[in-house]
Structures are given as structure tokens and as C-alpha cells.
């Protein structure tokens, strides 16, 4: 036994050492493979893998037919490494070409000249970029030569084969149709931050989600082919579909620009609305912004004034008073009143008609045909203030539309408790109350649509990259007056076109048209009214099967007849609409209504 003891002891020690060794290795193994595995993996990957963000594309804005109004253009930023451009005098070898393996030495100055020739800069300008970057930081590795060059320029620059010249993708917004619907689409500012219009209001839909990928790079910093790993796919932004028809929008802008120029007006608006759906087919404004070149436009005309600039509509709103009277059974189209040309119904309240006349018998129809402020007030005051206010509200006055733009004004409608005596009468003929041209179009849409007011819309839906379509909510339809009232009122509006001086200006052979003019005074911002007017015409056609409402307004003409300009704008836009949508001519004819005289 004693002979064996040292051997046993040695074995035991050896076993122990082996065991200890095994335990140490096991612990280390577990530590490496389990405990700190994640951290080590990350560290290892960090050394060779380079994470890159995959930019998502901003979505398009398209018209009702899918025509592109706004899209994202890929441009390229040209960059250089100032440090490398000056390294060894910036010299580099370039293949001599002609299939030979020979190279030629190119100096930095030569390269600057070559770059400049393509980008439209001079060689000195580029040398200046390099030197000023090196002045700030002698190890500078990055400077822009030129930003957002196009593909042709990019390819020419690449062909130069300059090693210290690099390129990066730069997305910019482009608007192939220029100022067509520029007022609605809006525009982007510095670094493509949306600033107005649909670009701003639908930014959430248009913006995508950037993805992320990583690739492994070799010792020379070049990406190893096939090593790219996409960690997160980029999701492009959705498309926003408008209710606008691009071609009709252009024609409308042509029409309103022409009329505004013809009478040297301060501004002009022209809106075309689909009666059944409340969709705005065209929202034209004079001098709309070209989002490609925002600086070229008048800063006061860059926004969608049809939505944000309410004005007193004037006589176009007499139709609300007439519809309210008929709906309440307080009058019929033939209700007769004796109308003087000026009237003082109460102390300190007075107003007059736009033309002088003897006391004239007028029916309710007549007050619209002659656009008599006195006549409509005499009849309208049969209804109390609250009732008239309720009808104005039912027609959408005083409530902002939610057509899909960032800002839509409600216009001004005081509640009846706050009406002074003059305002109480003025609101019957569209003064002392203001509305946007879109709200005015809504009033006529209601009359033409059997009394059912369908909310105005300009953005119809958001189509996400995966094809999901989200309709935009514009509010609930409101039955403002009964269908019979609406039909009777429409008949009176046809009488206005048929019986008054405007017939020759608005008639389109074969089509029955109804509508009402308005010549409204506007507040001068100092508590009074300006001496010039906003001239409007709101029209509905074809009367036998009402499909479209067009409202044209021409403000403060300096030369010529504003009312004729508004009528002509309506007429030309109506012709364009008929051509665009191939509206068949009317059937039936106008049944005359009595005007009373």
C-alpha cells in the first residue's frame, strides 16, 4: 500500500489538475458562447459591418385620373475628399483609353477644370472649395462640389474616373405640371420640408419609413459584394389622390388668369365642383405658385386662397334667403312685393338697390333676376333672424370645410344675438357675412343636389405603398332644404339666366344654365367698405340633370367690367367642363317664371 500511495497521490493531483483545467475551460467557454456572446458578436460585426440607412421615397400626389402632379426626383450630390485631392498634389493615374493598359497622370488642377466644365463651375471655384475646407480642417475628407445634379451630369462626372470624387443620392420634389394646381399641392422649403398645401396636410401619408441595411467592408473600405444584409426594408410613402382633374384645372387657371389680366383685377378665383359628390374638379386661382420655382411667384398668392381667403359673397347668397322663404312656406316664386330702390325699414338702417328705379312690382323670382337688395330684404324679413341664421348654417356658411388642406377658413358668420340691425338685413343679400369660394360653391351644390349638401373634398384618398387605400373623411352630408324647395330654387336660378342681361354672356348653345351674379362690397380693414367690388357668378349646369357648379370671382378690377369678366370666366370654364366630361346637351326647356314686371 505504502508503495502505491505516491502513485495514487500523483494520479489524484493529475486528475485534480485536469479537472481544474476542464472547469476553467468550461467556464470560459460558457462565458464566451453564452454570457458575453451577444456583446462579442456585436463588437465583431461593428468592426467589419457598416450600417447604412436606406432612404424611403416620398409618395406622389396624383389627380383623379392618376396623372402625376408631384413626384420625387432622384438627383445626385457631387462630393470630394479635400484631403485626398491635395495628397501627392492630387495626382492620380487614369487609363489612357483605346484599349491599352497604359495610364496617364492627371494633376488635381487638371481634374478641377474637367469637373468644372461639366458642373458649370470654373476650376478655380472648385480649387477654392478644396482649399477652404482644408483651411478649416486639414484632415477634411468631405466637401460638396455641387448638389442635386442630374443623371447626365452624374454620368459625365463618373466617366472622369477621379478617385477622390464621390456621389450621393439626393431626393428632391418635382412637379411636372408646374403651376397646375400648385395652389393646392403646395411646396417644400429647405431640405424638402413641406410648407403648404397637400404636401403639408397629407405629410403623414406621403412620408415613408426609412429602412436599414449593413454590409461588410474590406480593409480598403470597399463593400464586399454579397455581404449586404437588409435589417429593415424601406417602406415608401403613399400616394395622395386628389379630386382635381389636371387638364380642367389647367384650363380653369388659363381662364381665370386671362380674365384677371383683361380687367386688371387684384385677384380672381374659379372653382368647379361635382354636384353629386362634392368633389372639387378644379380650384383655380390667378397667379398660382409653380412649386418648382416658388420664388418666381407672388408671395401673397402662394396659398390656396380658395380655402383661406373668405370674402363677402354679396348677391350670390340671395339664393339662401329665397330657398329659406320657400322651404318655410313664407313665399313662393310668385310672391309679389312693391319694391322701391332704397329702403329704410327701421331707424338707422338703410340700403339701396344697385340701380335706380321707380317703385317696381317684383316677385321673389324678380328680386333674384333684378338682384334687388330691397326686394329680397322685404320678403326675407318675413323670417326671423334665428331661422335665417339656421338656414345659413345648414348651407355650410360659417363652418370650415374639411376638404383635405392644412388650413380651411370658416368665413365669418356672427350668431344672430350679435347681429346689429343693419347686419340683420345685410345677411339676406350676402353682406356682413363672408365665405370662401368653396363654401359658396357648396351653397349652389346644395340647391342643385336636391337640398342635400355634400361636404366639399379636394383630397380623396391615401394609397399606401402596399396598395391599401384610406379614404379621407370630409364630414357628413346635411339636408339643408327639401328636394322640392331645391327644385323650385333651381328653377328661379334658371330664370335669372334667362330673364336678365347676363343671358348673352353665359349661354352655351344646347345647354340649360342656372345661376346668380354677385357684386359685393368688401371691408377695407378699417371699419368701412372699399369703393370697388368683388364680382362673382355662381352657375349650375345642365339644369335638367345638374352635374357641375362653377363659381367665378373677379376682385377689384381697375380696367373694364368685372362682372362681365366673372361671367366670361364661368362661361369658358363651363365650356371646358362640357368638353372634358363630354356632357350631353340638355333636354327639355326653360318654363318662364314671372318676375313681376
Amino acid at each position, binding site marked *: 500500500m505504502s508503495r502505491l500511495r505516491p502513485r495514487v497521490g500523483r494520479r489524484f493531483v493529475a486528475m485534480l489538475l485536469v479537472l481544474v483545467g476542464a472547469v476553467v475551460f468550461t467556464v470560459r467557454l460558457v462565458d464566451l458562447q453564452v454570457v458575453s456572446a451577444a456583446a462579442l458578436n456585436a463588437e465583431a460585426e461593428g468592426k467589419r459591418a457598416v450600417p447604412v440607412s436606406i432612404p424611403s421615397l416620398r409618395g406622389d400626389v396624383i389627380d383623379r385620373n392618376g396623372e402625376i402632379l408631384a413626384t420625387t426626383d432622384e438627383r445626385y450630390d457631387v462630393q470630394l475628399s479635400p484631403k485626398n485631392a491635395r495628397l501627392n498634389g492630387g495626382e492620380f493615374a487614369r487609363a489612357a483609353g483605346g484599349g491599352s493598359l497604359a495610364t496617364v497622370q492627371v494633376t488635381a488642377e487638371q481634374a478641377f477644370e474637367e469637373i468644372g466644365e461639366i458642373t458649370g463651375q470654373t476650376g478655380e471655384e472648385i480649387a477654392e472649395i478644396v482649399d477652404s475646407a482644408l483651411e478649416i480642417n486639414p484632415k477634411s475628407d468631405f466637401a460638396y462640389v455641387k448638389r442635386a445634379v442630374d443623371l447626365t451630369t452624374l454620368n459625365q462626372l463618373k466617366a472622369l474616373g477621379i478617385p477622390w470624387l464621390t456621389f450621393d443620392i439626393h431626393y428632391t420634389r418635382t412637379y411636372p405640371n*408646374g403651376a397646375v394646381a400648385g395652389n393646392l399641392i403646395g411646396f417644400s422649403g429647405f431640405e424638402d420640408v413641406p410648407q403648404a398645401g397637400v404636401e403639408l396636410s397629407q405629410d403623414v401619408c406621403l412620408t415613408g419609413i426609412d429602412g436599414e441595411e449593413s454590409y461588410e467592408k474590406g480593409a480598403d473600405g470597399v463593400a464586399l459584394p454579397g455581404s449586404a444584409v437588409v435589417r429593415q426594408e424601406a417602406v415608401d410613402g403613399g400616394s395622395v389622390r386628389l379630386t382635381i382633374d389636371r387638364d380642367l384645372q389647367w384650363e380653369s387657371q*388659363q381662364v381665370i*388668369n386671362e380674365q384677371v389680366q383683361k380687367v386688371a383685377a387684384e385677384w380672381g378665383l374659379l372653382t368647379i365642383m361635382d354636384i353629386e359628390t362634392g368633389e372639387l374638379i378644379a380650384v383655380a386661382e390667378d397667379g398660382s405658385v409653380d412649386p418648382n420655382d416658388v420664388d418666381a411667384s407672388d408671395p401673397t398668392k402662394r396659398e390656396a386662397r380658395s380655402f383661406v381667403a373668405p370674402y363677402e359673397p354679396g348677391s350670390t347668397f340671395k339664393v339662401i334667403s329665397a330657398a329659406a322663404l320657400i322651404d318655410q312656406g313664407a313665399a313662393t316664386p310668385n310672391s309679389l312685393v312693391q319694391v322701391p330702390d332704397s329702403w329704410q325699414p327701421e331707424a338707422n338702417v338703410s340700403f339701396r338697390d344697385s340701380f335706380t328705379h321707380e317703385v317696381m312690382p317684383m316677385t321673389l323670382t324678380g328680386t333674384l333676376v333684378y338682384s334687388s337688395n330691397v326686394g329680397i330684404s322685404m320678403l326675407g324679413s318675413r323670417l326671423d333672424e334665428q331661422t335665417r341664421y339656421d338656414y345659413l348654417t345648414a348651407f355650410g356658411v360659417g363652418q370650415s370645410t374639411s376638404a383635405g388642406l392644412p388650413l380651411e377658413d370658416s368665413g365669418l358668420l356672427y350668431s344672430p344675438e350679435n347681429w346689429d340691425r343693419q347686419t340683420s338685413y345685410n345677411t339676406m343679400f350676402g353682406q356682413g357675412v363672408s365665405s370662401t369660394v368653396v363654401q359658396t360653391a357648396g351653397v349652389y351644390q346644395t340647391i342643385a343636389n336636391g337640398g342635400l349638401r355634400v361636404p366639399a373634398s379636394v383630397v380623396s384618398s391615401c394609397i399606401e405603398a402596399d396598395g391599401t387605400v384610406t379614404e379621407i373623411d370630409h364630414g357628413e352630408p346635411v339636408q339643408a332644404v327639401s328636394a322640392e324647395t331645391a327644385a323650385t330654387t333651381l328653377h328661379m336660378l334658371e330664370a335669372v339666366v334667362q330673364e336678365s342681361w347676363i343671358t348673352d354672356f353665359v349661354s352655351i348653345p344646347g345647354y340649360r344654365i342656372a345661376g346668380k351674379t354677385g357684386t359685393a362690397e368688401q371691408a377695407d380693414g378699417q371699419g368701412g367698405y372699399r369703393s370697388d367690388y368683388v364680382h362673382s357668378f355662381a352657375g349650375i349646369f345642365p339644369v335638367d340633370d345638374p352635374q357641375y357648379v362653377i363659381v367665378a370671382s373677379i376682385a377689384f378690377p381697375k380696367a373694364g367690367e368685372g362682372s362681365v369678366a366673372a361671367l366670361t370666366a364661368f362661361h369658358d370654364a363651363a365650356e371646358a367642363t362640357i368638353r372634358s366630361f363630354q356632357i350631353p346637351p340638355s333636354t327639355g326647356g326653360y318654363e318662364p317664371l314671372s318676375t313681376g314686371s
Partner: protein
Amino acid sequence: MSGNTVPIDRELLRPLRSIGPEPAPGAEPERHLRPAMPVAPGRSARRRSPLLGALTAVGIVIAIFATQLGLSIAVSEGAYEASALELEQRDLVRVERVLNQNVDKLASPQNLADNAAALGMVQNSNPATLRLSDNAVMGDLAQRTTEVQPNLVPNATLENLPVVDAEGLLVSRDFGQAAADVEAISDAPVVWEGNLPAPDTH
């Protein structure tokens, strides 16, 4: 490498060993009692020289390595080719994008109207229609035509793009922007640049 050769060597020897009589399932106890028997065939195998086996083994190893090398070259070649094709695809997508955008701007109403005007086209402002059910002519047959209005809606993307006139020649565009500019200028005072104009007196 040497670790590899050993088992392979044994593999090679196995068929030689089994040259002896095939073991019958019931014969095991007797075979245990014949220790000298396997020696004789083993000797006869050794006489064939081990060099051949070794060379074959090395040859196979080299073949494996060569195949492996070949495959990995093919794979990385494929990776470079894929990468080159991806680049080509990217470039083609870029060209496609530029062409699409050119189509978009050439299809803009401003461009169409400018070209129509340059070609001398007129517009039938209120077309009449024929109703097939009763052959009735709807609308007015004495049609007005209107000249195409000069474009009044600016589009900066069309700058420097010519239009085609009636002779099929490219002529410069009377750009809508110009009209807008003139209007803008007429409102603002203009700063004169250069020499003041002097009348030509004779």
C-alpha cells in the same frame, strides 16, 4: 492533413482483409481459435507496396481541395457578377426614371397647349353631338372655334424645351413664365442696369 490520411489508409486496407473467407454467422468461435490466419493475407497486401495507397489518398485530398477552390472561385465570381448586375439594374432604373419624368413633363397641359398653338391648331369650343337612338343632332352645328390662348400657367420644368411648329421645326417656346414675369415687373419699380438709353437722333 496527416490526421486525414490515417483513416483513409485503413479504409483502403479493409477490402484486402476481407479477401479471406466470408465470416459465416455461426462460425465465430472457430475463427477466434485461428490467430495466424489474418496474417497471411495481410502480408500479401503489404507486398503490394503502401506507396500506391498513399499516393491515391494524397491525390484524393488534392482533388477535394481543388474542387473546393474551384467552387469558392465560382461562388465569389457569381457574387461579383451579381453585384455588377445590380449596379447595371440601378443605372437602368435611373435612366427609366429620367425618361418617365421627361414623359410627364412633355405630357403637361402647358407643353401640349404650346405645341398646339405653334402648330396653328384651333379649338372647337362647343362641339355638337349626334344622338344615335334617334339620329338627332344635339347642340349647335354652326361651331365657334377659338385660337389657343397663350399659356398663362408657368411651368419651370419646361424651360429651354423647344416646341414643334407647323413646318416641323423646333422653335423656342414663348414661355408662360415670361408673361407672368412681365406682369410682376410692371408692378415694381425697375432698377436700370447699364447705360441709359439715348434716342437715335438724325
